[in-house]
């Protein structure tokens, strides 16, 4: 179906058909990435500005690479060291960057709603690369695209998401995406990081690892963000690993050919045994490659602006 969005802010707002349009487009880009000249002129002459108010080498590089493969000019600004520390408001910052002839903006910010906020302020496409604990739509798109490739469809797939759900935008975006695509999602982890409130998003909440992993086609591990937890939600990393870390025995609780996913960066030895991360069941590096194709798709699809904007 045609894509009429100027922005990619959340998975919540996307229809299942729109998600499949992203997958379809990403598939094409993935083929292009295998060519001798792995580059298309789609966004030639456009300038994509990555505004990162929070550190994230991985996501920033993936977006830079995606824009480069689309022949866009790309500029990444580390906003932590920029004018915001001098007291400039977000609105003023982005309006200034817009005035410098940016054509698209990719934003990573610690405040939930910040991407939606600047998408309202600006007339150019805005892509959310993570807004606090709210959403990280391109991550969920690449995760579900990986499952879509692996299993043909997410319909009826059983997926466990394990780890720090409370503070995770990745979990929230994946819950929306997987539900929309027909997968069954179980969240599992310590009660303090996996509160019951999530059940209202249409998922199962469990604090028992064995029953939660039983019969799952995939397990997605989330990074334990111990750097974010000022009030400790669990006693220690060591205890977390003992209770909820994925090891060989626990892997056997899943379906035989279940896949292991992780958005990275991995804490080897904390949420996952090191050898499992490199095992044949791990699709962690597929996720990274798919991240490039998915972000190319997102940039390409949003580049046209919205139908209303064009009409007016």
């Amino acid at each position: 179906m045609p894509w009429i969005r100027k922005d990619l802010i959340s998975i919540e707002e996307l229809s299942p058909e729109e998600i499949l349009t992203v997958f379809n487009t990403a598939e094409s880009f993935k083929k292009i990435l295998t060519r001798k000249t792995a580059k298309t002129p789609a966004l030639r002459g456009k300038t994509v500005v990555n505004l990162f108010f929070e550190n994230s080498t991985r996501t920033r590089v993936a977006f830079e690479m995606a824009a480069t493969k689309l022949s866009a000019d790309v500029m990444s600004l580390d906003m932590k060291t920029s004018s915001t520390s001098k007291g400039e408001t977000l609105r003023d910052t982005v309006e200034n960057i817009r005035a410098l002839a940016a054509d698209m903006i990719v934003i990573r910010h610690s405040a939930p709603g910040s991407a939606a906020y600047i998408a309202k302020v600006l007339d150019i496409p805005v892509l959310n690369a993570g807004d606090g604990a709210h959403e990280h739509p391109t991550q969920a798109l690449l995760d579900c695209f990986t499952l879509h490739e692996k299993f043909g469809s997410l319909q009826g797939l059983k997926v466990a998401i394990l780890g720090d759900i409370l503070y995770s935008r990745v979990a929230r975006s994946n819950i929306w995406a997987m539900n929309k695509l027909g997968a069954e999602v179980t969240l599992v982890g310590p009660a303090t990081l996996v509160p019951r409130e999530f059940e209202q998003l249409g998922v199962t909440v469990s604090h028992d690892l064995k029953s939660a992993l039983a019969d799952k086609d995939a397990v997605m591990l989330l990074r334990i963000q111990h750097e974010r937890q000022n009030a400790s939600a669990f006693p220690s990393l060591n205890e977390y690993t003992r209770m909820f870390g994925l090891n060989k025995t626990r892997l056997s609780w899943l379906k035989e050919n279940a896949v292991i996913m992780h958005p990275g960066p991995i804490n080897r030895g904390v949420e996952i045994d090191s050898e499992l991360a490199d095992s044949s069941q791990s699709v962690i590096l597929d996720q990274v490659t798919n991240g490039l194709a998915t972000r190319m798709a997102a940039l390409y699809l949003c580049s046209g602006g919205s139908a209303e904007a064009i009409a007016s």
Partner: protein
Amino acid sequence: MSPITRIKGGRVIDPKNKRDEVADLYFQDGVIVEPPSSDSKENVVEIDASGLVVTPGLVDLHVHYRVPGQTHKETIQTGTAAAAAGGFTSVVCMPNTSPPADTAGTIQYIKDAVKREAVVHVFPTGCITVGMEGERLAPTGSLRNAGAVAISDGGKCVQNNGLMRRAVEYAHMFDLPVIDHCEDYALSADGVVNEGYVSTKLGLKGSPTEAEDVMVSRNVILSAKTGGHIHLQHISSKGAIDIVRRAKARGVNITAEATPHHMSFSDTALSEFDTNFKMNPPLRAEEDRIAILDGLEDGTIDCIATGHAPHTDYEKDVEFDYAPFGVIGLETALGAVLGELYHSKRLSLSGTLSLLTNRAADVLRLDKGSLGIGCDADIALIDPDLEWTPQGDAFHSKSENSPWIGRLLKGKVVTTIVSGKTIYHNGSILA
């Protein structure tokens, strides 16, 4: 003697004196008077109130007027103009100014500004603790002597229970109520919205209702212990209301208020990250909103207060996490409250207005909220059925941070009279 004014032909609703009838109301020299005898030769000036409700000027126990120190948000002039435009003739202003009103000098400063600029009656409050820091008691007696009608730490809550006990005990000696914003900071953490479905969905940090409930319980226990009067501000959770209901049943000396926004909205109004819906306590779940309406209906909650908290557009036009808490409410309160209580048929018109007049005044024993003979001629002429839609630039407040912008309200003040002087009429301040 100046001429007598006759407010003619209106429906006089005076809940304090259990009056609800179509009648003429007379005042002279700023006070309500008996009707003149038929052979009186005195001059009579007439105000036509036919088709309108004539009620005591509204009383708001909770406004933030930002004087001294933050006059970019609001001044006494603009704040009292907003009050008059909402039908309020008496307001109690909170001490979380800059600097906080923790000395007699600052109370005097506020009173001087009120004398110069105010168009309605303004009653200041002083701080519970020095600098509202929750560590040492402010000079309560001196604050009382300077004119503070109660003590409060504004938008802050004294966390130290021992200190709070001393504050209530000490203030009780002067018969001075203690007004508290009930919030346990360890439980609310850095919450910016109610903890629940909406916080889960939006990824915003949630503040659980228990953060409020714990402190409401604390205050009930300390009031019972000391006998001191504690007034609970903007009570918002079902649990807290239940605690108050049971405490009142056994005669604990506590009172509580609710705001029009907590009566009107639940946290689902927040889906767009609109900072005009960011306040503390946050908008709660629908079951909490219903509990507030029930609490107002059965008298558990004593009155309605707006919590009028002005912030400029540039302060609110930021990321949700960084926006200040609070919304303005003086100019929209009447319409919002009538909608939730009167037009919804929960309460009579008199019962509804009572929560904005005599019952509010009674909480702090202010000599207001009555149309009895000899009372100040503070009067509001209202049209309870007038439909209107608030617009940001039409507010008299200096700020426009209202969640009601663009929403249809039913009920509006037409004329506001303060001490016998018409201050507001049909959209304009006349003072």
